[in-house]
């Protein structure tokens, strides 16, 4: 009578004891890192909401009572009330969309180019990563020098026939004449978008290249046998396979470009029509010393981003079925 019960029972108790140990070990290993990350993000984000309701100035930071205050929305009306607010919103959206599209477009082009083996491919692939690896401070300094109106190499090439040098990073608008039409180009904003595309195309390049190399060769060979040309194979075989990875890239790049601060700050300082919200936030904090207003603008930034992400995920995002 005992024997049939004996084994199942002990294995069960042993297993559950083991599961308990595993559970304890799992928590023990996870908690320290989780506590650090959450206390550096979740706590600040909540506190940011509190700060945005307070009138706090940088100079009286030391004497302040943080949790004893009259909450009001003055900070929000103050940051929305400045004349530079709406242009900054528009710039941020244009910059984020432009930077995202350009970096992914360039990255896809580069990935298609180095997809098939050729002599020197490994070296070319390595060089492609260069803009992404170089520290942003160095990259912006080189761009500033290359675009310098008096001795920059770009103006030297453009004005070799004696034209006026172009102030790329300090002109808010530039009249372009094309096919008899003339229109105003927001030049400095265009330059920071070009910088964004240049700096982050390697990121998209690596993702897309990895996905390209996972496409089974037979698919394309079969299409070739059926007489599909290069452009047809691209449209009907490669593009459908890339849809998932591009959806993810758009999501990541849009979020990161939307929140980007240092690239524009270092390149133009937010001058000449390139002021984005993040630059305004740091200006409220550092320049004007209005901590509460900076926090309020940070919340507005996060809110706009959430709305745009919601729209994107709801209507455009496609999961990678193959992954």
């Amino acid at each position, binding site marked *: 009578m005992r024997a049939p019960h004996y084994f199942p029972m002990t294995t069960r108790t042993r297993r559950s004891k083991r599961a308990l140990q595993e559970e304890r070990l799992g928590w023990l290993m*996870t908690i320290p890192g989780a506590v650090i990350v959450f206390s550096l993000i979740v706590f600040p984000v909540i506190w940011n909401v509190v700060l945005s309701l307070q009138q706090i100035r940088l100079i009286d930071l030391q004497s302040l009572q943080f949790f004893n205050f009259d909450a009001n929305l003055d900070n929000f009306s103050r940051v929305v009330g400045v004349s530079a607010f709406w242009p900054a919103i528009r710039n941020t959206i244009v910059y984020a969309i432009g930077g995202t599209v350009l970096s992914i477009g360039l990255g896809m*082009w580069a990935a298609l180019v180095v997809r098939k083996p050729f002599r020197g491919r490994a070296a070319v692939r390595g060089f492609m990563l260069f803009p992404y690896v170089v520290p942003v401070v160095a990259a912006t300094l080189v761009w500033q020098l290359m675009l310098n109106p008096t001795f920059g190499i770009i103006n030297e090439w453009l004005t070799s026939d004696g034209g006026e040098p172009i102030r790329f990073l300090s002109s808010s608008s530039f009249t372009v004449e094309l096919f008899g039409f003339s229109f105003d180009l927001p030049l400095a904003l265009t330059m920071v978008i070009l910088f964004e595309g240049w700096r982050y195309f390697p990121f998209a390049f690596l993702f897309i290249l990895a996905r390209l190399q996972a496409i089974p060769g037979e698919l394309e060979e079969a299409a070739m046998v059926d007489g599909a040309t290069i452009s047809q194979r691209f449209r009907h075989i490669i593009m459908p396979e890339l849809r998932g990875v591009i959806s993810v890239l758009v999501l990541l790049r849009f979020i990161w470009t939307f929140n980007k601060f240092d690239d524009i700050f270092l390149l133009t300082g937010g001058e000449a029509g390139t002021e984005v919200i993040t630059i305004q936030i*740091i200006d409220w904090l*550092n320049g004007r010393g209005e901590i509460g207003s900076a926090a309020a603008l940070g919340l507005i930034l996060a809110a706009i981003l959430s709305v745009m992400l919601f729209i994107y995920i709801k209507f455009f995002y496609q999961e990678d079925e193959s992954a």
Partner: protein
Amino acid sequence: MTREVFENRLFGLLKWVSIAFFLVITVFPLVYMISLSFKDIPEVVTNPSDVLPTWEQITNSTTYQDVLRSRDDGGFGFVRFLTNSALVSFLAVFITVFFAIFAAYAAARLQFRGKKTIQSGILAIYLFPAVVTAIPLFVLFTRIRIGDAPLRNNLWSLAIVYLAQTIPLALYMLRSHFQSVPYSLEEAGMVDGLSRAQVIWRITFPLSAPAVAAVSLYVFMIAWNEFLFAFLFMVTQQQNWTLALGLQQLNSTEVPATALMAGSVIISLPVIILFFAAERFLTEGLAAGGVKG
């Protein structure tokens, strides 16, 4: 000519044009940076398209010594900034790897309640705007004081705030690595009488050395390149400037472009060397982890 032949020729040609285009936009800025770190600005002004320096210009140049020399000796003090950057970056690497490796192992191998919530929480945090957390962290690190000085004046505080960016990345990359270590190896160890902790310590971690190296390099690069927090925390503390901040501050004063380019070479060289030395497993990790930028 059929459409197929036409397309083969067209795209065959376009491929090489494209390769040339990408080489120009990626390599030329680097060449320009190195060249202008040796050439004096008057020469560049008179002849901007003559980019490459002569051999004499390279050997006679004292720009790098000037940039590195301390301010007391009339230089730009970059040795100090180099030391600060190295200290902050190594601190960030050690703390990140120490905390992430355990959490990543637990995520890949152990079953426990609440695991999914914690992990997706940590990853979601990775997407969170740094600017929004920057304000409260700035206030917090200003308010907490060590002795007379606020905590943010301490180089350690930089390494700590970088953890918010580096731990999620390290966790994600190491978790995919641990999932690729065959479970049968660990089981064999346990059958031989090792405890779970001993298996982790003696079998799994030694097998993970290459993955840990790749993660360390990424964390190092993030900390080395970081600008926003260095700027917010340290801008009034010149002795604590990192290379990124020192170079940016140099740019806002009347400093010759030659020195700025030499500074750019100094800050870029370590990461470029590290990256190309370890390119293969780094690019794989990059595609897997999605390094924030």
